[in-house]
């Protein structure tokens, strides 16, 4: 193992500087070059994260409410799920309602060549706790349902189709997780969808164990089978257009995932409120799938610490700057991932947006 090669590959896909940021930097440089007042704007960035603390406190309050409702077992504590937890029945019931709502609408079939559109928004954490003030990035993507063609808005503001990259993240190769075609022909009933989800989860876990994958789509391949299944469902809902009936089936799948609960209310990255399916991982981070209370359509996702997290000292033999007096902490309620999918649908082609 060559440690220098590993370092060189680490975070190799970091985004390039944005046009706005480059413009701002040029402006500051020009002002400096032009003006006599050479002392301005030297440290505005130091305090960018300051507002987060207050926002976090607000989130904690919200979480406390959520946790008091829905009762039952402590989330995240392993091995305390006697029989079928209440949440499972709740999940199944919501899935049935979602199915009823879906069947009231048209059933537009999605074929492999169908162009679909997804607009999604993330709040960038930049390592800090996320709050309503965090930088928001919205991305529009067009792709055919089989994942073979894909387009996005380029730096020039126009829509460009991307060239397929062999083995790259937009390909439908074995490394594409979940496969873009995951939903094509997927069953619209919970039991059938469950089979498909767990089969894909098992494929991801096996690839992780064989060392064939390192970076994958929002799914931690080293997590438990149920965690992988939940994260896979969350990722499909977040990144793809999902027809209503399949969406209901994905919700139904969650009723079979031990530990999944229903939160009465959460909020997505655009501030839209709705109930959420949730599953808490081993680090006390609760993964949430938020949906609309009336239509049951997916809204967005959130990752939030549900208890105070205090960094433990590094393993023996690892020298570090860990300070036992001041360990790194995440407060209960700290949000470390926040997304929303405001628009998605079938379209005529790249550049077209759903009506």
């Amino acid at each position: 193992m060559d440690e220098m090669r590993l370092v060189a590959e680490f975070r190799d896909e970091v985004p390039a500087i944005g046009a706005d940021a480059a413009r701002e930097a040029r402006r500051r440089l020009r002002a400096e070059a032009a003006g006599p007042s050479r002392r301005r704007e030297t440290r505005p960035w130091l305090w960018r994260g300051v507002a987060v603390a207050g926002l976090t406190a607000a989130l904690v309050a919200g979480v406390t409410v959520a946790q008091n409702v829905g009762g039952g077992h402590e989330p995240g504590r392993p091995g305390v799920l006697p029989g079928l937890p209440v949440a499972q029945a709740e999940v199944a019931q919501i899935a049935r309602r979602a199915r009823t709502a879906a069947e009231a609408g048209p059933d537009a079939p999605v074929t492999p060549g169908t162009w679909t559109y997804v607009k999604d928004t993330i709040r960038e954490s930049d390592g800090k706790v996320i709050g309503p003030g965090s930088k928001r990035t919205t991305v529009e993507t067009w792709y055919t349902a089989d994942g073979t063609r894909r387009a996005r808005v380029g730096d020039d503001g126009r829509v460009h189709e991307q060239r397929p990259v062999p083995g790259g993240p937009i390909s439908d190769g074995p490394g594409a997780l979940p496969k873009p075609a995951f939903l094509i022909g997927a069953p619209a009933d919970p039991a059938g969808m469950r089979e498909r989800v767990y089969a894909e989860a098992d494929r991801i876990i096996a690839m992780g164990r064989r060392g064939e994958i390192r970076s994958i789509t929002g799914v931690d391949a080293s997590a438990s089978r149920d965690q992988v299944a939940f994260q896979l469902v969350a990722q499909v809902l977040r990144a793809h257009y999902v027809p209503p009936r399949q969406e209901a089936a994905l919700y139904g799948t969650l009723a079979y995932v031990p530990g999944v609960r229903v939160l009465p209310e959460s909020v997505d990255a655009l501030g839209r409120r709705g109930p959420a399916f949730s599953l808490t991982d081993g680090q006390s981070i609760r993964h949430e799938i938020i949906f609309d209370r009336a239509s049951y359509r997916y809204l967005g996702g959130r990752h939030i610490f549900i208890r105070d997290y205090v960094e433990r000292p590094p393993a023996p033999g690892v020298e570090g700057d860990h300070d036992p007096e001041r360990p790194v902490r995440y407060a209960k309620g700290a949000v470390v991932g926040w997304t929303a999918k405001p628009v998605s649908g079938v379209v005529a082609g790249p550049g077209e947006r759903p009506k």
Partner: protein
Amino acid sequence: MAVRRAGSAGDVVDADLIAASLSDPDRFAALFERHHAEIHRYAARRIGTDAADDVVAETFLVAFRRRRVYDPARPDARPWLYGIATTLVARHRRAEVRHLRAVARTGVDPLPEPMAERVVRRVAAQEHERALARALAGLNRGDRDVLLLVAWGDLSYQEVADALDVPIGTVRSRLSRARRKLRAVLGAPEENTHG
């Protein structure tokens, strides 16, 4: 990896641009155009794009203010710029370490993901990446600076020495210590003891 641009663009090397900017400050803009993307990439890998946006702007402001003391014997300004950027990155040291520990702990990289490859939303890191992040977090700052300037800035030992204003022997010993610690954490047998 990194393209050496010192001799490009009609043989106007960085040092010439900096010299010209003494009488004509606008000439400094060309230095920005040559190097800002690379400096941003380096900073973003360490502390995230948001903080990197500021570090890049600050780096060129600081460089502009210090241009009179630039050593004209160094045609390539990259080591100088990397040195300034590294000093600015140091202000974010706690955040940097916290990001790395988050990767080590959760396998999820809190840094914003690349827009172009948005399908790979988050790096759900595998074991060796988590171990690597843990190891990087555990390095002291001087060692981490040297390691990342070599690995990500693609600078030579002499250029790293210039960037950080330390003797080249210090660069060698820091790099060797950093690599040794990485190997220890990554579980590789320590086949050669440093030189």
